[in-house]
């Protein structure tokens, strides 16, 4: 697969002087090896007024975040990414691997990470949430999924990880039920097989 172009927003951001935002611009880094899914997630995020940078691999994401091999820790997050939304199944590094790398980095571990997957695997979802993902979206991604992201930017909430996990899992299940219910009944059975 050809290397993706990093969004022009990266270059624009480099030239921006630092400023005190009145309404903060939320910069989302989207990671997906599918060019179709990247295009859709970009539009979904931009429609919801986020600034978006999209890349086609976890390795590219690590470059943007400034934590690929050999970089000094001080370069972490110089592009001021406020959220990362990543596909789970990608060649080389998976979205889960990316999640782990981010959470292991002192400069990045507080950035909310959301994982997307076309496969509804409860053990996978549980593992991602337990290891620090803020949310898990079952593909195809829809506007209501993106609307759910805004809660991850709200001010600090005292939480125990257990409470957050179960609440998040319920939201994920509810969203999934709504998606299935709005389609033909037989598709539900096929989803189970898949």
């Amino acid at each position, binding site marked *: 697969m050809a290397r993706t172009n990093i969004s022009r927003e990266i270059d624009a951001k480099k030239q921006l002087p630092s400023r005190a935002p009145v309404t903060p611009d939320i910069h989302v880094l989207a990671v997906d090896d*599918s060019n179709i*899914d990247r*295009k859709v997630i970009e539009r*979904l995020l931009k429609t919801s007024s986020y600034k978006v940078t999209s890349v086609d691999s976890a390795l590219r994401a690590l470059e943007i975040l400034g934590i690929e091999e050999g970089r000094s820790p001080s370069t972490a997050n110089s592009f001021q990414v406020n959220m990362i939304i990543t596909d789970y199944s990608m060649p080389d590094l998976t979205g889960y691997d990316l999640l782990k790398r981010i959470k292991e980095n002192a400069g990045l571990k507080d950035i909310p990470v959301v994982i997307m997957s076309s496969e509804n695997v409860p053990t996978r979802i549980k593992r991602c949430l337990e290891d620090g993902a803020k949310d898990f979206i079952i*593909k*195809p991604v*829809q506007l209501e999924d993106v609307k759910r992201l805004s809660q991850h930017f709200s001010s600090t909430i005292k939480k125990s990880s257990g409470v957050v996990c179960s609440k998040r899992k319920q939201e994920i299940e509810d969203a999934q039920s709504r998606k299935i219910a709005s*389609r033909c009944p037989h598709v539900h059975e096929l989803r189970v*097989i898949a």
Partner: protein
Amino acid sequence: MDVIGRLQRQRTELTQALFKEGLLDEQFTQLQLLQDPNNPDFVAEVVSLFFEDSEKLLDELTRSLEQDPVDYKKVDAYVHQFKGSSSSIGAQRVKNACVIFRTCCEERSQEGCRQALQQVKHEFFLIKSRLEALLQLEQQILAAGGTIPFME
């Protein structure tokens, strides 16, 4: 009925048929929702990407199934990709055909896979021609000075 009215009615009928026959599902509606005057070509662009990607995938799938022995893991990876992209644009019957194809990969059934591939190709070329007709109608409406209302 004036030209624009006639074209819009054709567009409505075509769109409704696509949903009624199950060729498209609500994900396509989601894409239509994302189109606006600032992004007037969004659906056409996504659909166009889908056509390009799919034809490459179909070539790879055909080639992979001709190998001896068949690498079912590789075939399954391509089908998984195809299932994902068809799901993302709402091409429901293509997606469903991919689901069946994956089952054949799991069963390592060469004949099953060949038939599944034929079915996926059939569904793909069907949705391709119907979507091309839809997009062309929309272009005609716009060229005639009309607008494209969002219709389910």
